[in-house]
């Protein structure tokens, strides 16, 4: 049986899938970045709601985090993918445009990932805020800082320092969740591997290659976060 040369299969020549896989990896990273960005915003909002003490805000935020942490990510993706198209079609119908409107898989996927990672971010920020020493905040108040100055110069930098490790974790999770978006047809890394394996009949090679690429992205991300953490930990007793 012909076993095509590994290099030919994954190289960058006309028969090679190397370029496609790298493109897929690029889409994966882009997808994860979009979802992660959405997640930081939602997480910040929900953490603020939980910490604010206002009962209604707290209840909404708590429901959000409990629900999103208790149901499978795949379900959320299905909701946004199938449901999103329906909602968009209805919306467009209201605005006069007839016919089925498809919500792009990328958008649905990014939204879904964003909503899920938002719940994870909430807990990270909440824990980080609690960990900030109240004494340092008090000293800020004592020198006459306004709430905004206090938040900007003291609270936020300190919260960030405590939040960074958790945020790194959430990024790694988001990266892995992006693989689920392949069910919507978006041509990210896993989908590319599926297409390749279907086309060449070599699933093991392709999924192994995909796994290695995910490993690579995860490792590089890990180093980046490690560096960032080291910077914020300057002068701290470890």
């Amino acid at each position, binding site marked *: 049986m012909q076993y095509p040369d590994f290099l030919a299969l994954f190289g960058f020549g006309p028969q090679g899938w190397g370029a496609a896989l790298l493109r897929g990896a690029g889409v994966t990273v882009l997808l994860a970045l979009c979802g992660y960005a959405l997640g930081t915003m939602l997480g910040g909002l929900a953490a603020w709601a939980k910490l604010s003490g206002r009962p209604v805000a707290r209840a909404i935020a708590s429901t959000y985090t409990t629900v999103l942490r208790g149901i499978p990510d795949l379900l959320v993706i299905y909701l946004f993918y199938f449901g999103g198209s329906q909602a968009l079609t209805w919306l467009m119908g209201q605005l006069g445009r007839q016919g089925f409107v498809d919500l792009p898989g990328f958008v649905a996927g990014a939204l879904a990932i964003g909503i899920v990672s938002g719940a994870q971010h909430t807990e990270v920020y909440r824990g980080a805020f609690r960990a900030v*020493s109240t004494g*340092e905040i008090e000293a800020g108040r*004592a*020198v*006459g800082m306004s709430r905004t100055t206090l938040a900007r110069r003291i609270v936020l*930098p*300190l919260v960030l320092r405590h939040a960074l490790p958790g945020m790194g974790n959430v990024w790694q999770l988001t990266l892995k969740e992006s693989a689920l978006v392949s069910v919507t047809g978006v041509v990210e890394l896993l989908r590319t591997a599926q297409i390749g394996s279907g086309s060449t009949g070599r699933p093991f090679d392709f999924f192994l290659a995909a796994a290695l690429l995910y490993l690579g992205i995860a490792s590089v991300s890990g180093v980046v976060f490690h560096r960032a953490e080291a910077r914020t930990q*300057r002068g*701290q007793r470890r």
Partner: protein
Amino acid sequence: MTDIAVRTQGLRKSFGSHEVLKGIDIEARKGEVIAVLGSSGSGKSTMLRCINMLETPSAGEIQVGDTVLRVVPDRHKGTRPADPRLTREVRARVGMVFQSFNLWSHRTILENVMEAPIHVQRRPVAEVQGEAMALLEKVGIAEKCHAYPMQLSGGQQQRAAIARALAQRPEVMLFDEPTSALDPELVGEVLRVMRALADEGRTMLVVTHEMGFARDVSNRVVFLHQGVIDCQGTPEELFGGRGSERFTQFVNA
């Protein structure tokens, strides 16, 4: 221009149903060094923290220099400062030194000292930096200016905290048990700095357990007991036996 540096009138503070301060009238003139003594629960720290409104009094008013701070009722918290902006303005004129130093851990010592003058008082950076370095020299830790707080000993951190308060060019300095969290051998270096400040003629209110400091450095001793001023007077008077029965018991404990 008043001669009064700090004054409280009818100061009351309750935490929930527990009344900690039951009406404190205290006054400090410019240049006075007042030692505030009392056992735990007497309310001495609370009183100090009411002066710069870190705790909002339940009743009464605070005067710093010519400015009077009042409280108004609040639906959720009982009372709140009548004028938050004025409160912050007063805080910038009052230097506070905490028991646990409370230096900002994400900034170097020099950055800590420069933070309030630049970001609250909005003074020019070059001027602030020069003054900050001079202050660090004065408290004896100039060489640590680029270190981070956690890299310093407790005594060094507290001296840095004092420099930070001094950088605000305060009219009054509040010390909340400044040496209580220090190892015994580090207490001396902080007391020395405080003594130098007193000799300069700074107005200082010092809540402390250091009897030596109260006796030798302060102009007046105020003894709090269960939320009221039990007795006050010069150190000679109180330590000489002319204080109240309770005070003598407290000192000899």
